[in-house]
């Protein structure tokens, strides 16, 4: 096979991007990745500006999923609160950009909004991690915080609930957010359709590569160690609380950026971003896409959201039923997620060849069906032990 020797500079970068904490490290992976990026970049040219504008929502969601993958997949912190930072940033962007007005207002609003999300994440993270809240309690606490935000924002309907000239709008939300723009009067760019798509794609790409560097660095090892066994990691001398707080804050910033993009995509912001359903959706994306894979989280998000939209257009009232069925079957059949599942398959095929691969697949399906029938009382049963509640509480 061709053995491309990379210049030393690229090699260093390559080393940073690759590591045991990401699934795809081989040249084949990067080649496929490059092809994928070219396809994504060409999408607006092929499908048109409108379709690209629509798809850019999924890319913005990808940022949200990436943030969750970092804290959940890599550090083991399950949080329902990513949408809280997503929403806080979106609302802040709306308030600042509409108050200041113009492209300059929007340029200022972007860092302010991300700062608001980052600060919220820092405060909540400090409250939780330095207060000793762990595991499932973190999940419930972040969920409750998100719901408090929803309840609060939904009743800010009167004109007394205004910040500057912008009414928070309560249940009706804040309409009229401008398309994404940067610059000052006279020298600004406003993005929509294809332009917006390429911008979001670029942001997502940078965030993804940055996250890869992070998780493959020494810091990334600390994250994974905390996920596997936090006590042992602490005993080895790592300041677990500080690491958790740092990654939680970083995730909040990423989610916040996603929120700004969401607000400028729909030109609208309302309390439904804080709802129970929307808070649960990122967890669904990341679980199905592969929580321990950054790319899996992003790709899983795009696939699921695209599918949900397709269902709602074509399946009418059965759409939600199909989504539920897909969720259940995917989790039961492909436990690690779609992308890790693909990778496992690829690894297997490349080691054992196609014929054996198909044989193995057939045997696996057979065993699984037998086990499932067994659980129904036909044949032998095959169960794992649920841990006691005390273990879960740790």
């Amino acid at each position, binding site marked *: *096979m061709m053995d491309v020797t990379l210049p030393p500079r690229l090699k260093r970068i390559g080393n940073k991007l690759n590591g045991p904490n990401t699934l795809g490290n*081989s*040249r*084949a992976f990067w*080649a*496929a*990745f490059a*092809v*994928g990026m070219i*396809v*994504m970049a060409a*999408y607006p040219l092929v*499908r*048109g*500006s*409108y*379709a690209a*504008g*629509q*798809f850019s*929502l999924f890319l913005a969601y990808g940022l949200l999923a990436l943030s969750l993958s970092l804290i959940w997949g890599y550090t083991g912190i399950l949080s329902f609160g990513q949408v809280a930072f997503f929403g806080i940033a979106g609302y802040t962007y709306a308030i600042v950009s509409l108050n200041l007005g113009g492209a300059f207002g929007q340029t200022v609003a972007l860092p302010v909004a991300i700062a608001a999300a980052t600060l919220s994440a820092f405060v909540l993270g400090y409250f939780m991690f330095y207060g000793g809240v762990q595991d499932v309690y973190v999940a419930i606490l972040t969920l409750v915080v998100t719901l408090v935000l929803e*309840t609060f924002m*939904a*009743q800010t*309907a*009167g*004109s007394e609930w205004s910040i500057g000239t912008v009414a928070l*709008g*309560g*249940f*009706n*939300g804040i*309409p*009229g*957010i401008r398309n994404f723009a940067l610059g000052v009067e006279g020298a600004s760019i406003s993005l929509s359709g294809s332009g917006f798509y390429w911008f979001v794609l670029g942001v997502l790409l940078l965030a993804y590569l940055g996250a890869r560097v992070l998780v493959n660095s020494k810091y990334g090892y600390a994250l994974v160690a905390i996920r596997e066994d936090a006590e042992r990691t602490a005993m080895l001398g790592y300041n677990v609380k500080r690491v958790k707080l740092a990654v939680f804050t970083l995730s909040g910033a990423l989610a916040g950026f996603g929120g700004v993009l969401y607000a400028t995509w*729909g*030109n*609208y912001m*309302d309390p*439904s971003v804080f709802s129970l359903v929307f808070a649960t959706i990122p967890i669904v994306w990341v679980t199905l896409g592969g929580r321990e894979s950054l790319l899996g989280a992003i*790709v899983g998000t*795009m*696939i699921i959201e*695209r*599918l949900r*939209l*397709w269902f*709602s*257009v*074509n399946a*009418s*009232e059965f*759409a*939600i039923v199909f989504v539920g069925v897909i969720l259940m079957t995917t989790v039961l059949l492909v436990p690690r997620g779609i992308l890790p599942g*693909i990778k496992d398959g*690829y690894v297997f*095929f*490349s080691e054992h*060849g*196609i014929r054996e691969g198909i044989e193995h697949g057939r045997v696996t399906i057979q065993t699984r069906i037998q086990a499932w029938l067994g659980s129904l009382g036909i044949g032998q049963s095959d169960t794992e032990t649920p841990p006691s509640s005390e273990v879960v509480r740790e």
Partner: protein
Amino acid sequence: MSDNRVSRRSVLATGAAGVGAALAGCSGGGGGGGSGSDTIKIGVLEDRSGNFSLVGTPKWRASKLAIEEINDNGGIMGQQIELFDPDPQSDNQRYQQLTERLIQQEDVDALWAGYSSATREAIRPIIDREDQLYFYTTQYEGGVADKNVFCMGSTARQQLGSVVPYMIENFGTDIYTIAADYNFGQLSADWVKVIAQENGASVNNEEFIPLSNQNFGSTISNIQDADPDFVMAILVGNNHSSFWNQRTSAGLDIPMGTSTVMAQSYQHKRLEAPALADVYGGFNYMEEIPTDRNEDYVSRYYDRFPDAGYANQESVNNYFSMYMYKDAVEAAGTTDQQAVREELEGGMEVTGDQSPEGDISLQGPVHHMSHNMRVMRCDEEHNITVEDERMIPEQFLSETVGIDLSGEDSELERQFTPTEYYDAAGE
């Protein structure tokens, strides 16, 4: 890689195919689909699943009934109507995506969409950006002045303006308001104060209840303690429907007025009598209106949809507005949205079988309807009777604010609220 059983080329191919498949999805046709000028394209986005499906499904049904009737009678200008009606699942992001799709990809000539005001606000930026003709058919808080939006439902001012004076006249001047704690509820409560002041009454107690609340024990006790002459109950959503059983079993027998209960979510058919005894509602329509033309409409509705639960207030707005659109297109001679808009702004009459509630008219310069308002009473056996009836035009935008969307204000895109114009509302 030691063996070349899986070549790099096949990996690239698989990778590209995988990503490509994910992107392409299954939607057919590229952007800008064929704009076949031999059909008239209409988009109807109404919730058939999710939180609002109870009130959204009748709206969809009524639109479908109107379209089928029109098509059976030759269509609009001889052209058949082609309906695009995906289900937005009570999800505002879904609404945004589907609205964009209907406008950009299906090129609809007119759009009906949304139950809640939040949905309307979520898609209004898209509507305004694309200059899409849009009919919003739910009764709502009022005040929307937008060149692209035609509001077919009765406003809070019209609804409360029919029932509150009636209640004051029959029961007294001491009012207790309980309202859902969000925009519509709060603005309606403001209107109750304004109308009370105009009629020599006063709202002495106000209580706002979050939409998620279904426990009304404290509210009921408070009302009993205050002992008002009547209660204005502006309750919204399924959780609030628990109020009626609780009030009845608690023995609270103060008369109650409403602009939301019964006509929208037909609690009087879903709850066992006498849960809604002595409730008076101000509506432009209820299924039980005893006129010939309405009874004819209701039988047509159930013939077409035997499984339907109820023909609710907002669904009839979907029905008549479809006919009104047909008349406007035929008068303008084209489906060009600007021309149709101008035709509508010249004022429209909706009469006869086209309007089951009675003969009504569109106030062109403000894009709102004058409605045939009725005060309808529910008794202990859940029978509905009409107690009062009068035509009430839209007053807030046309008189108090004074705008003209067909003329000088033709570029407006905003919503006005009573607190800006009435002292009573701001308290």
